[in-house]
């Protein structure tokens, strides 16, 4: 909810610190609220459309859409292995990014040691990246 800072310029005497704390507590509740909003919005739309729309069934309506031609074979086809390799690479770098978040907050205060440490960290990851590149994981087949 609308979070209220004590140091806010418009903070008049009528708003006390206790009130600010109470409003802050609602924070995580707003996530539940937004999930409910999403469900209500989507469900409302779908239910309204079901009430308003007419529906009928014939076998051709239920067919898989493939620009007018009946589909051949299974629809869950095999996919290029490249997607899998990129997903693996993504996993490595995404975890790296998550590790970098707390580092980024304090790097200004810690200074040069932080930079050197993260350089070592990135260098090790970069070696892995080079290995993947050498193995041809970044090449689309």
């Amino acid at each position, binding site marked *: 909810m609308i979070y209220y800072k004590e140091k806010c310029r*418009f903070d008049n005497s009528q*708003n006390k610190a206790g009130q600010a704390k109470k409003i802050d507590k609602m*924070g995580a509740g707003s996530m539940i609220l*937004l999930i409910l909003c999403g469900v209500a919005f989507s469900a409302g739309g779908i239910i309204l459309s079901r009430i308003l729309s007419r529906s009928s069934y014939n076998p051709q309506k239920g067919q898989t859409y493939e620009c007018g031609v009946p589909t051949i074979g299974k629809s869950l*086809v095999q*996919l290029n292995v*490249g997607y899998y390799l990129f997903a693996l690479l993504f996993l490595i*770098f*995404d975890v790296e990014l998550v590790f970098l978040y707390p580092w980024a907050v304090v790097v200004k205060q810690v200074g040069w040691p932080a*930079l050197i440490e993260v350089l070592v960290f990135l260098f090790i990851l970069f070696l892995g990246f080079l290995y993947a590149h050498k193995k041809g994981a970044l090449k689309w087949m």
Partner: protein
Amino acid sequence: MFSLEKISIGVQTALNNSLPAFWALMAQFAIVGVLVISLFAVLGLVLVFMERKVSAYMQIRLGPNRVGYKGTAQTLADTLKLLVKEGLIPDGADKFLFRLAPYVVMISAMLLMAPIPFSRNFQIWDINIGVLYISAISSMAVIGILMAGWSSNNKYSLLGAMRSGAQIVSYELSAGLSVLSIVILSGSLQLSEIIQSQENGWWLFKGHIPAVIAFVIFIIAVTAETNRAPFDLAEAESELTAGFHTEYSGMRFALFFLAEYANIFIVCAIGATLFLGGWMPFHVGSWSAFNQIMDYIPGSIWFFGKTFLLIFVIMWFRWTFPRLRIDQLLNLEWKYLLPIGLINLLLITVMAILGWHF
């Protein structure tokens, strides 16, 4: 002067004075819920209309101009049309996942609304790990997309969803790196504090060239993350008809469409907040008269102005660049944007430690 902040504080104090604590809280929840839902509806209408008008003028034609005043009611009419259409589910589909997918996409778009600061103190949830929250929630949408593509039992849908998944997860890294550079400069993950740190200048200007590089990478990455042209090969019309939502119709399709536009708004709002100062007015050094005039414009107008500027830039991309191939797209990310982003991050770190930003 009209400002959202005073209204929100006024409503808050009025509720707290007149109702017991619990019911005041519930009333606030209700107000926020209604506001968010109506914001979503209005955003969908406005952005679709804007998209059609912008593309029309870029192609030297008029665009929608019949329904309502100068065509402004066109998207409303389209929504009504979608509302009365039958929602088909193909026979071979996984019915449960097929129905669930629009909800997942919509909820992740809704959740992203929480930390966005519309004006000073006008924010649903000023979470102290705001940037991390955004990057965590924004990667949830890809689950919905993969769900939709897989459950449709359609080759086009599956291919589109896989492409979309590969693209979104790849470009998330670049977006994350450029966001990190602003976190380094401002030293906080909280969006309101990041804005506060831009009081004497936006990070785009204060961070010199590395910040500009980060901004450009951010814009490219979010264009890809929202599946917009030139990175829209997940729903490339000429090869996959409509990508992961080929089999969707009626209101379920409308929800995917709306979530896509809401996501564009959200990423542009985050870009405006991190790089362009959010609701902070534009100030020029020591021109106090100019700065005072700028201060008179309310923060919400600054916020929406910057956001819509970025949205316009992303719409502009669509009519400027041809679509990439999937291997070109992944090459661009893994061989160019990611290494450049990492080096840029180190540059920014050196700059932040030496205090070269001002």
